[in-house]
């Protein structure tokens, strides 16, 4: 809805910022097209007839006096079938279509709708003529690739009596229902990215968000609809964690936001996700994924918007009654985009040059996660879980972005370069990480996996704590000077680190660990520790304990294909039973 030809013209261009005159009628956050090429920009400030704009595309070569055209609406994203499996940039343009338009390199001014206009979807209505519909009601469904049922909803703010409903082959812009007042409803709807989508009620976090990663599910679990910050210096494995979760976490839909990260990584994600199967549904991981991509060399303003765009898409799937997960990699780049734009606006800087509204923006962003009762009928629940990587400069967590996220996130998975150097992956520091959801989630795991889950978790945490204390002592007196029971503890902790906390993202059998396997490995490691203590109590010396074979058996169990698990578990048990040759047969396996 571009307005009448205006006299608006550019009066300044610097970096991602532009200024224009003749903008008296503009509104804040309104979209405009600038220059002869029609680059997309957003109004940030209005003073008299002057407006300050942030430009979502590269501004090199844009001249003063080029025209500015108002679009009349804020930045919005098209939501509908066809989103799953797509790769879009920070303002919602599909990158594949942009390549068709401008070739291998991204050039400004290209334009393509988020969802392919040529695609046809089979719409199956579930409402009939004469039905009264409210906002959020399911109008009908579309079956997407991989068997995903896409629910077409009455957009927020709309209601009325169905005057006509049109099933069958539909394009994304086609009308699928008409209300008595003449309003038409389509397969898709648009929503302004900076505004959270409404829901009927917010629910508490009571169900675990299964990540398939042992250290998270067992030690620092998060809830469906929860938020977690994952800070870590470079090389600590943030991206590998985000990717592992995107592949294996129990979510119906994953929105992966590559915010200011590497181009090769995005190519890798695309390649991998198309090839990999979701372990639970057997469909390609890409078929449940929407990729929002703004690599570090793409325009900085679109980096700021990419996070909101991704969250809006996740909320849309939440509103259909699905469990959506958002992987934001990384929020530091989002914050830096705020800083860059704020500094060009000559705003008064806060800490480390970041704008003073960094904390409040970060809080608002996190609050878009949550588990809700969706609007409309039939009654359903949905969730948005937010896993955000943070890249603190120098790995120092006291910096403003990490701190702003920690104040609002429900959990911290702190990555440690020391562990990464030891190649202990995921390099999650178990001493500083925490989860505010752990008690609730513990109860849930006790009920669904094993009644002993929480107790075992407590025992492992205790073991790791004592391990840290003992290692400090050992670094002064040497490990040889420790008592046998302490040396046993150090070994048991090393085994827990290796087979429970350590997990290879690249081993096809170990990349995803179901909770039952996680529990089994933790339990077996604790059993070994107990058996060792019993043996020492009966007169064994540490040197007599045959720990190495148990350790190898545990590692084999960890890496065993699903079919071999029982055999390998029996082997572990047998090895624990023969831990000490001097032991009577019942020495092992007691707990």
């Amino acid at each position, binding site marked *: 809805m571009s307005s009448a030809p205006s006299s608006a013209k550019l*009066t300044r*261009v*610097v970096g991602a910022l532009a*200024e224009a005159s003749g903008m008296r009628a503009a509104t804040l956050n309104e979209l405009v097209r600038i*220059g*002869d*090429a029609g680059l997309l920009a957003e109004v940030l400030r209005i003073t008299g007839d002057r407006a300050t704009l942030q430009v979502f595309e*590269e*501004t*090199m*070569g*844009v*001249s*003063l006096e080029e025209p500015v055209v108002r679009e009349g609406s804020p930045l919005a994203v098209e939501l509908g079938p066809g989103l799953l499996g797509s*790769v879009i940039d920070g303002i919602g343009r599909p*990158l*594949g279509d*942009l*390549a068709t338009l*401008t*070739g*291998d*390199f*991204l*050039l*400004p*001014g290209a334009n393509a709708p988020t969802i392919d206009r040529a695609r046809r979807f089979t719409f199956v209505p579930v409402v009939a003529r004469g039905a009264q519909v409210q906002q959020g009601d399911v109008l009908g469904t579309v079956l997407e690739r991989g068997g995903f049922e896409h629910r077409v909803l009455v957009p927020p703010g709309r209601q009325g009596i169905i005057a006509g409903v049109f099933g069958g082959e539909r394009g994304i812009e086609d009308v699928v229902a008409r209300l008595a007042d003449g309003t038409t409803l389509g397969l898709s709807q648009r929503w302004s990215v900076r505004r959270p989508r409404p829901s009927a009620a917010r629910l508490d976090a009571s169900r675990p968000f299964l990540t398939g990663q042992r250290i998270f599910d067992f030690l620092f679990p998060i809830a469906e609809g929860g938020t977690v910050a994952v800070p870590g210096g*470079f*090389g600590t494995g943030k991206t590998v964690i985000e990717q592992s979760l995107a592949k294996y976490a129990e979510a119906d839909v994953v929105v992966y936001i590559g915010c*200011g990260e*590497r*181009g*090769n990584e*995005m*190519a*890798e994600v*695309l*390649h991998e996700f198309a090839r990999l199967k979701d372990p639970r549904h057997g469909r390609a991981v890409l078929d449940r994924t929407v990729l929002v991509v703004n*690599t*570090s*060399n793409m325009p900085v303003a679109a980096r700021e918007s990419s996070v909101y765009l991704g969250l809006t898409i996740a909320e849309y799937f939440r509103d259909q009654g699905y469990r959506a997960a958002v992987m934001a990699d990384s929020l530091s780049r989002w914050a*830096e985009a705020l*800083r*860059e734009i704020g*500094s060009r606006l000559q705003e008064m800087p806060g800490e*480390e*040059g970041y704008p003073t509204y960094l904390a409040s923006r970060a809080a608002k962003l996190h609050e878009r996660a949550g588990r809700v009762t969706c609007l409309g009928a039939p009654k359903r629940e949905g969730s948005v879980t937010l896993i955000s990587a943070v890249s603190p*400069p*120098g*790995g*120092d967590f006291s910096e403003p972005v990490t701190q702003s996220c920690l104040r609002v996130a429900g959990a911290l998975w702190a990555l440690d370069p020391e562990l990464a*150097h*030891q*190649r202990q992956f995921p390099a999650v520091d178990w001493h500083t990480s925490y989860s505010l959801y752990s008690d609730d989630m513990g109860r849930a795991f006790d009920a669904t996996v094993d009644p002993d889950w929480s107790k075992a978790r407590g025992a492992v945490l205790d073991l790791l704590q004592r391990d840290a204390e003992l290692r400090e002592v050992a670094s*002064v007196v*040497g*490990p*040889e*000077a420790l008592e046998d029971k302490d040396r046993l503890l150090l070994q048991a902790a090393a085994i827990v680190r290796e087979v429970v906390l350590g997990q290879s993202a690249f081993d096809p059998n170990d990349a995803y660990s179901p909770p039952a396997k996680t529990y089994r490995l933790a339990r077996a490691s604790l059993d070994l520790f107990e058996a060792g203590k019993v043996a020492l109590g009966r007169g064994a010396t540490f040197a007599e304990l045959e720990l*190495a074979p148990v350790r190898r058996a545990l590692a084999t169990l960890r890496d065993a294909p699903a079919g071999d698990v029982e055999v390998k578990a029996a082997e572990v048990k047998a090895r624990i039973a023969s831990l000490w040759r001097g032991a009577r047969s019942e020495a092992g396996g007691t707990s």
Partner: protein
Amino acid sequence: MSPMRVARTYRGARAAAGPLVYLNGAQRAALGEWVTITAPGQAPLRGQIIDAGEQLSVVQVLEDTLGLAPAGVEIALTGELANAVVGKELLGRALSGAGDPRDGLPPPIGEALRPLWGAPLNPTRRLPPSDFIETGISAIDGMNTLVRGQKLPVFSGPGLPALELAATIVENARAPRGEPFAVVFCGIGITERETRTFLDRFAASGALERSVLYLNQAQDPTIERLLAPRQALACAEHLAFVHGLHVLVVLADITHYCEALREVAAAREEVPGRRGYPGYMYTDLASLFERAGVVKDKPGSVTQLPILTMPDDDITHPIPDLTGYITEGQVVLSRELHRRGIFPPIDVLPSLSRLMNAGIGKDRTVPEHRKWADQLYAIYARGREARMMVAIVGEAGLSPADRRALELTESFERELVHQGPKRRTIQETLEAGWRLIDRVPREDLLKLSDELLATRQAQRDEAQHKGA
């Protein structure tokens, strides 16, 4: 990109300060527009508009502004963006950071002009890097494998032989199947001595004829440092994606580049970020480093080997820190190893190649490469920890396994990392590693399977048999 305007000429600038010249209301000035500033009786200075404004535009001048009188100059806005002359004929040439000849030959005509500020590669058009590059350096090929299309920086410290390492790699690097290969070397603010060392090695090894050199030396204008790597990368992209060459780009030294960036930011009175570097340094560095990669349906590739000096060996300094967040790993040089005469003095513990897994294994190097590297890494890490412990508790306080690891650590540094100027094939590297592993008792080899060790034993027996 909008069509550019015609050239316009103005007389007199409003102000000049350091590398910046301020213009009154230059009509239709475009961001990034190329400008020449001529003072009577002097050679014209080149510059670029970095802030286009109705009242005031800012020009960043590439050349030295010494003696410039703003009121008297003539300013020509060319109507064009900054471009680089590119072409295959540039191979064998030495040019300045601005693209002027440095070898006494006439300016290159080239085949095409390519925008200096290259557009970002569409991520959906990228091919995930997966081809092994044999650098001839064991600590890289074996432990931190370089892959085509990767950007792998060398983190060095003052006085460490980073340039020698780069020169060695350039001399030795081989494409796996002998595909056409070229080098683009970009010196950024490097000294005369460094330049000479590098050029002499280049000339001696015959690498010069397959190379393009862009040289901005310490005495050259600072702002030219911002241009030099972009000249180099534009040229590399052309050679790779138009001519299908596999191009290795060496950028030395990124620290000088960042300092030039800071100088301009300070001149513009921008709000400084950490240690005075501008807040957009991450984005700016990314606009260089992200110009590495492989493109679908195109035969060539751009691989980057940037070199940076960590001030005071501090890896948390903003320059190595931001670089590490953008690049796909890092090769870290160690002062301690250098002091002990080990070349190349690569510390493999903090070093990392993120793309290693994609470049090694079956059909690339050998199937057991990953396990081999993991095992050596694990023992070396353990030995390094033991080395620290020895200082406190003495060797007697170590467990027998720690003592064995300590011994192996010594050998690892002397036999695997140290190789002097000699080139090692990947087979020689792997064998050197196996010879270390052979000395370790089974119980310490937690990362290797019985089958793998049996295969190794069979190989040794066979070799012994042949030898006998």
